[in-house]
């Protein structure tokens, strides 16, 4: 027996946020690179 799916129960279409994910990752990488750069300088002195 086939199930009827009411249209109101349809899950909302998720927005495509792949670009956002990559951009936020890039920010995270910038933070890490700068921090470890400064930390390396700290260790070397």
């Amino acid at each position, binding site marked *: 027996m086939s199930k009827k799916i009411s249209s109101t129960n349809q899950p*909302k279409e998720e*927005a*495509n*946020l*792949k*670009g*956002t994910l*990559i*951009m*936020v990752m890039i*920010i*995270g990488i*910038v*933070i890490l690179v*700068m*921090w470890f750069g*400064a*930390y390396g*300088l*700290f260790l070397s*002195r």
Partner: protein
Amino acid sequence: MELFNFSKKESRLYMAFMHVTFISLLIGGLMGLLQTLVRSGKYTLPFNIDYYTILTTHGVILGLVLTTFFIVGFQFSLMGKTVGISDKQLMWGWISFWVMLVGTVLSAWMILTGEASVLYTFYTPLRAHPIFYIGLTFVIVGSWIAAFTNFRQLYVWKNAHKGEKSPLLAFMVVINMIMWFVATLGVAYSVIVLILPWSLGYVATVNVLLTRTLFWYFGHPLVYFWLLPAYMAWYAIIPKIIGGKLFSDPLARLAFILLLMFSIPVGFHHQLTEPGIDPTWKFIQVVLTFMVVIPSLMTAFSLFATFEITGRRKGYTSLFGWFKKLPWKDVRFLAPFVGMVAFIPGGAGGIINASHQVNSLVHNTIWITGHFHLTVATTVILTFFGIAYWLIPHLTGRRLTPTLNKLGIIQTFIWAIGMTIMSTSMHIQGLIGGPRRSAFSEYAGGDQVSTWISYQMWQAVGGTILFVGILLMFYIFIQLAFFAPRGYEEYPIAEEEVDAEKSPKILENWYVWVGITIALILFAYTIPMIDIIKHSPPGSIPFDWPIGRS
């Protein structure tokens, strides 16, 4: 969403704040230019003007006066637009303006006559003239009047709209003003109870560590007081300008609540090299500081998501194609966007500053100056300029013409170029040991010092370019205020998606969030404060001569 139209009376109040803002920009900017020229070693100030007088003027006029006047005026306009303002509240708005202005004039008078060259941090035991401190007190009290007027505005609206959630921007303004009020209590206590009687000669000594600690209890949330109005524009105004919708109302509210909770109990990260504070409590406050990373990254995510969703709706399907669809030729978007970009290295630098060990690499170096010229003098100020391009003509019944828009775009580029040169050279010079807060000196010809000079030349180049940007911005302001063609400029406020999720009611439970904020402050400060009061060395007598007062 119901929006209120401004009456002429209202617009006049908001414009009064804007006039002080842009006059401050001109004066403070000129002082900044002079500083960079002096530090190049090729220029000496005329008429025996002291370097530290112009340094104090620059810091106080731009860091305290320009920002506070713009923020209070902008926030009044946000409240007037979203929840309305009564005649009585308008009167209180004017009282706050005049009290702040009288305070500014008093402090400026003392600074310009060389009686208060104590920099904007006014660290004891340097002693300024008592009128300087009285002036600062007036500025703070004036801003409190504005804060309580804003609270009242939302309260009245809530009573008339039982069960409805408050407008997002009004909620954000109230968060910022709660934070400001709680933070300024510390500096008000320091100025009124500790410094003023000492400055007047009624008490012989002052507890230096206590005044510095109370300053930084206020000084870090001050940074967020600057930043949150920029976030307001990023979250709730930029989406409208780019033709999109609010990404998430609850996410924005949660980010602001987290910023309220974690921006105050963190002042020790400015005092990491300070003797007399238990390292355990420094560590605890460093951990609390790092919590601010969460709402900051939430904001970055929310902004990119707004851009991507808006671009994709306009038909771009490739990974970054949506980026092209952003309105790059609209200065109302471009200026804040450049500000957002500057916040990436600015924020990353902030994490370095707040890390206990790495802080010793940059503490008291001109890296710090480079850092806050990225954050407040680029991220915040370019967003404020971005707001001014539509707010000023909206208030004066004029239009941002295509020519003024183009000039604004040129201004944004000038600012970006000037600041990249100046701030980068400050960062590098700081890493090789160049001190902040100092006039030009060859320090008796030390080898290390010779490596700093070329960076100071670059700072003068950057400073000069920035001053050209300030002149252009002032010209645009005058045009928008007095000469642009009559017309209507939109006050852009983004709307929610039609099918947006409901905001949880707990987000508007002020007792919970203010309660947690106070609990965190008590946790982070009670024991170290008792320590500082009980175990400090003997207090210090005032010092007048180092700042040229006899």
